């Protein structure tokens, strides 16, 4: 993986930049000591690390605007950061960049139950948005597994999803307004408490733009009333293809579960050893959750079980109480942790049409033999968002490279099957160089043109999302191997 070579001129002007910024920010909001900037050297994609030149932690939209204006005047690249849980290296700095972290901006600005909205500063964590409204029985629907840590800022930048997005949609479907600060310091309000903002759908464009179009400092989010209840059912099969067919039949039957999660045997075994959730040792396992009042849940689960039985399940277990529901989810929720216990792993995020599931699983199995690395599959089956976990040994020379090559092949397979490189984690640096497998150069040119409008100097998070060769003239800086 390459990153642009740091600009010596920028590094040489560091003290001048520090002097200008320190006139605007309190001393503890400006971090320049190398021992401290190291805290920002990577996000959750820890394979790539590089400490930034500086980190700033502004406390208001005005401070964000001031910082950006000054960096813009000085030609300094800025990398926005929420909580640093990106799995794609979206918040990875370069040595000549300023990390702009919004972690201090975590206030709730407004809660309005009549209009079913909450307005927050974007440094607030995902889970604490729900925390602010749950006493009144409301919740914020998008629920990435990282919700305890990740910030709304990163959720918007990555258009994050969650286990329940089959029913409630992803971030973009729950976002009503933002305050956006462009690289030159311009502050723009987009949307608000009403539906369908006027003009072009800039909100939809900002969401998922990976911190390249502007820094989002405030957000108006849709909140929903919590359902009366929810209950999962666990269904085991001795064949992944049959499990896939069962998912398709459930969807066709008109039942709309809130979640359909899938785990294969390697993943089941690993989580069993780790979490002892009592999962059956079978080829494929589905966890399906429905919501409503008790009788409504009974009815929907009745239909689901009826369909499942036609596919000869080896296990069919409905949660009898909260406790059992918790155990059914326990394994799924600890899947990543469990895999981490036994191995290093790389988590992919390609999405495929649900109908291609059996073919893709079979091909991944074959490739696993070819590359000599094991794969465990755990994913959101309802929407085809796969999370193959490739297991490797970071201490074994060459293993990481083999793993990366294998990962790239799986993602190409997803694209060939009619899907895409990333369903919810974003492109970042990780999938940047695969973009031409999904898009033709002119398709990407249309996207680059959008960045030209918002950030003509290409200073905001410039080395992400697109292959470096395509953005080189825009960034106008030489590259170096890293």
């Amino acid at each position, binding site marked *: 993986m390459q990153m642009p070579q740091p600009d010596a001129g920028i590094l040489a002007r560091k003290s001048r930049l520090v002097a200008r910024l320190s006139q605007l920010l309190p001393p503890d909001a400006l971090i320049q000591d190398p021992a401290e900037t190291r805290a920002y050297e990577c996000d959750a994609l820890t394979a790539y690390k590089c400490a930034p030149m500086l980190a700033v932690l502004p406390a208001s939209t005005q401070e964000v605007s001031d910082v950006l204006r000054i960096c813009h005047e000085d030609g300094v690249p800025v990398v926005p950061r929420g909580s640093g849980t990106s799995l794609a290296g979206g918040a990875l700095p370069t040595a000549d960049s300023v990390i702009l972290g919004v972690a201090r901006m975590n206030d709730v600005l407004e809660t309005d139950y009549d209009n079913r909205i909450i307005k927050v500063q974007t440094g607030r964590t995902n889970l604490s948005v729900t925390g602010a409204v749950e006493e009144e029985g409301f919740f914020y629907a998008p629920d990435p597994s990282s919700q305890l840590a990740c910030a709304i800022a990163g959720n918007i930048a990555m258009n994050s999803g969650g286990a329940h997005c089959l029913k409630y949609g992803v971030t973009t479907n729950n976002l009503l307004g933002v305050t956006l600060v462009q690289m030159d310091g311009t502050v723009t309000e987009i949307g608000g408490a*009403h539906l369908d903002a006027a003009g*072009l759908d800039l909100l939809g464009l900002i969401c998922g733009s990976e911190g390249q179009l502007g820094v989002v400092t405030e957000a108006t989010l849709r909140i929903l009333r919590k359902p009366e209840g929810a209950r999962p059912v666990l269904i085991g099969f001795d064949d992944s293809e049959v499990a896939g067919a069962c998912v398709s039949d459930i969807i066709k039957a008109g039942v709309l579960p809130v979640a359909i999660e899938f785990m294969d045997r390697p993943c089941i075994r690993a989580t069993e050893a780790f979490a002892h959730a009592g999962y059956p040792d079978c080829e494929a396992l589905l966890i399906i959750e429905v919501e409503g009042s008790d009788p409504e849940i009974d009815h929907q689960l009745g239909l689901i079980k009826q369909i499942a039985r036609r596919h000869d399940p080896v296990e069919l277990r409905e949660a009898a109480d909260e406790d059992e529901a918790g155990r059914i989810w326990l394994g799924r929720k600890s899947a990543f942790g469990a895999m981490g216990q036994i191995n290093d792993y790389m988590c992919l995020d390609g999405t495929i*049409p649900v109908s291609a599931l059996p073919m893709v699983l079979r091909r991944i199995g074959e490739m696993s033999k070819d590359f000599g690395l094991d794969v465990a599959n755990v994913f959101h089956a309802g929407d085809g968002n796969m999370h193959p976990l490739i297991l490797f040994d970071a201490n074994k020379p060459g293993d990481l490279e083999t793993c990366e090559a294998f990962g790239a092949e799986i993602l190409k397979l997803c694209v060939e099957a009619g899907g895409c490189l990333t369903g919810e984690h974003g492109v970042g640096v990780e999938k940047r160089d695969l973009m031409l497998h999904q898009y033709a150069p002119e398709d990407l040119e249309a996207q680059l043109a959008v960045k030209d409008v918002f950030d003509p100097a290409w200073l905001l998070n410039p080395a992400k999302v697109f292959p470096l060769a395509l953005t080189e003239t825009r960034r106008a800086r030489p590259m170096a191997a890293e």
Partner: protein
Amino acid sequence: MLKPVTEKELGEAVRQADGPLAIRGGGTRLTGQAGMTLSVSGLSGISLYEPGALTMVAQAGAPLAEVEAALAAENQRLAFEPMDYRTLLGTDGTPTIGGVFATNTAGPRRVQAGAARDFLLGVRYVDGMGRAIKNGGRVMKNVTGYDLVKLMAGSWGTLGVLSEVSFKVLPRPETEATLRIAAADAGAAVRLLSAALGAPYEVTGAAYDPAQGAALLRIEGFAASVAYRAGELTKLLGAGELVEADASGALWTAIRDVAPFHGAPGDVWRLSCKPSQAPDLAARLEAEALFLDWGGGLIWARVPEGTDLRARAGDYDGHAILMRAAPDTRARLGMFQPQPEPLAAIEAGLRAKFDPRGIFNPGLMG
């Protein structure tokens, strides 16, 4: 009129254009656009439909009716409930699926399911230089690069000409019912609608029709569940009349297609606002007739010809679209509310990139 039948021909037509193009799907929409008409209706047909994956891919000129018929055969539907404005606007023609997404159409179910943009998964379009561009795909979750899909939805043919759309569809529920509860005025109605939408009963329509003197709440799903939730809503909000199945469907088709204004003269406006502001805002409009949808978040107003409703509305969180008016009024007031800076500058910048010659529906959106 230009009427290409392939994306390639469409690109050629755009490349060779030497003046403004009026982009047209089925032409059910009175935008009064100047220039050579470029019809997309020649690009027709459904290219892929996977009911088990809840996805469809269609050419932009495919008639909406064809799409809906194919979905109905599998007991599925477009959940965002696109409307048919032909009676309201006195137009004919066949609405196209491309036009539905280009205008980001959404009916009463907008409050719960989202708008067309929330269901659009991928697009192919021809930009102002005649280049064919792809964005998104046909899978439910996709964050690969910028979301130009959303940008194209609701851009009214001002950024590109859609040639193909892929979108998410949903199962049709077993049945529906509407709870009709008397409401003395808009204030009382919005309080009822807010309480209902803030309850865990998944209301999929929340309107107030002063002519019926009632708030309307729609519930959809399995029969037993619909009955249960109607009961719970009655406990919460007070007694009302329960309108079931087809009769309920008819009520919502009328709201969706703005039936209360059919056959009546005057200009028609559509305001998006914060629901709690709707009662005061509605009063300020001094409309000859109006009704509310989206829990109060959408106001339909009929006013005497030539009225500048934006001036009457004053300050609120939202915006107003002029839906029906004589050409001189449309020219004077503009169909869309002008955007403030710096939004206007961003939009102008995007137009200059997507359509550098400024030939797509010039002036329509700004």
